[in-house]
């Protein structure tokens, strides 16, 4: 294998992603090639630095907070409440629209009801220029 090909798979080799035959080829090449050995050393140092950085757990919580854990548990036991909580913005808007609609329909119905003609009472229709008109 050529140096470029070896260097393309150095990271795979270091993280044990290669099969035994390919690993042996890389090992054999590194024994003989200074350039690839230098590339491997640089990659190894970067990998070691990253693994060292992985020790830093600042700002990384180990567990879910009690509040979040309760929410997750509630989602399991009371899925409807959990769904409402998660979509509270949409639910609030929906409820507000529904209330406005109900008030509107109710007020229209109330107005129509107050002007309704009770059954059994004859309706007198006044026409312009006939008896009862103010023009006379």
């Amino acid at each position: 294998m050529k140096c470029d090909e070896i260097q393309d798979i150095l990271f795979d080799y270091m993280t044990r992603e290669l099969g035994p035959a390919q690993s042996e080829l890389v090992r054999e090449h590194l024994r003989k090639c200074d350039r690839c050995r230098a590339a491997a050393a640089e990659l190894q140092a970067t990998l070691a630095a990253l693994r060292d950085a992985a020790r830093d757990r600042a700002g990384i919580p180990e567990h879910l907070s009690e509040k979040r854990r309760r929410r997750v548990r509630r989602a399991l036991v009371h899925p409807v409440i959990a769904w409402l909580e998660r979509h509270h913005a949409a639910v609030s808007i929906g409820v507000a629209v529904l209330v406005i609609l109900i008030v509107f329909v109710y007020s229209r119905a109330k107005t129509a009801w107050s002007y309704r003609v009770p059954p059994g009472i004859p309706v007198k229709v006044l026409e312009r220029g006939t008896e009862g008109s103010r023009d006379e």
Partner: protein
Amino acid sequence: MSTPAAQSKSDRVAAFEAVVAAYESALLRYVARIVHDESAAQDVVQDTFIRLLGSWKDRLEPSPRLSGWLYRVAHNRAVDWLRKESRRRLLHRNQAQERRLYVPPDRGPEFALSDAAVRAAEALKGLSLREQQLVILKVYEEKSYREISEITGLSVGNVGYILHHAMKKLARACR
């Protein structure tokens, strides 16, 4: 394989608790390294588990398939959060400046990182989100290419290719 219907409610609660216990730390670690915000990481992982309840149709028990699903959903939620956060930062530039000035607490010499580690961690933040994701999964979480392929939906070959180039960039930055 038994279906969720075969799991009684108490079994399902216990199974779910077991899943949370098995994956919460790993997911929090992974998401916190992507979003760099402890509270956001908590929210993302909480939402991931809640989503699991609505979406997972098979039996609830730790498995490679479930693990892949959880990482995938957590990653997508983390990316959503980052997008929202970048929009919010545009609106609140001053606040963003304060965040950049944040210095991690000094926790004593036994926790002190080497200069190379600090440089590597900084260089990692400069990679694309996809490259960061693969490096975190491979180096920090020690996942195999096959597992990373299941989480990301990339082919195994593509995972290796992206990682190879990401590591070259990191090595250059660490020189």
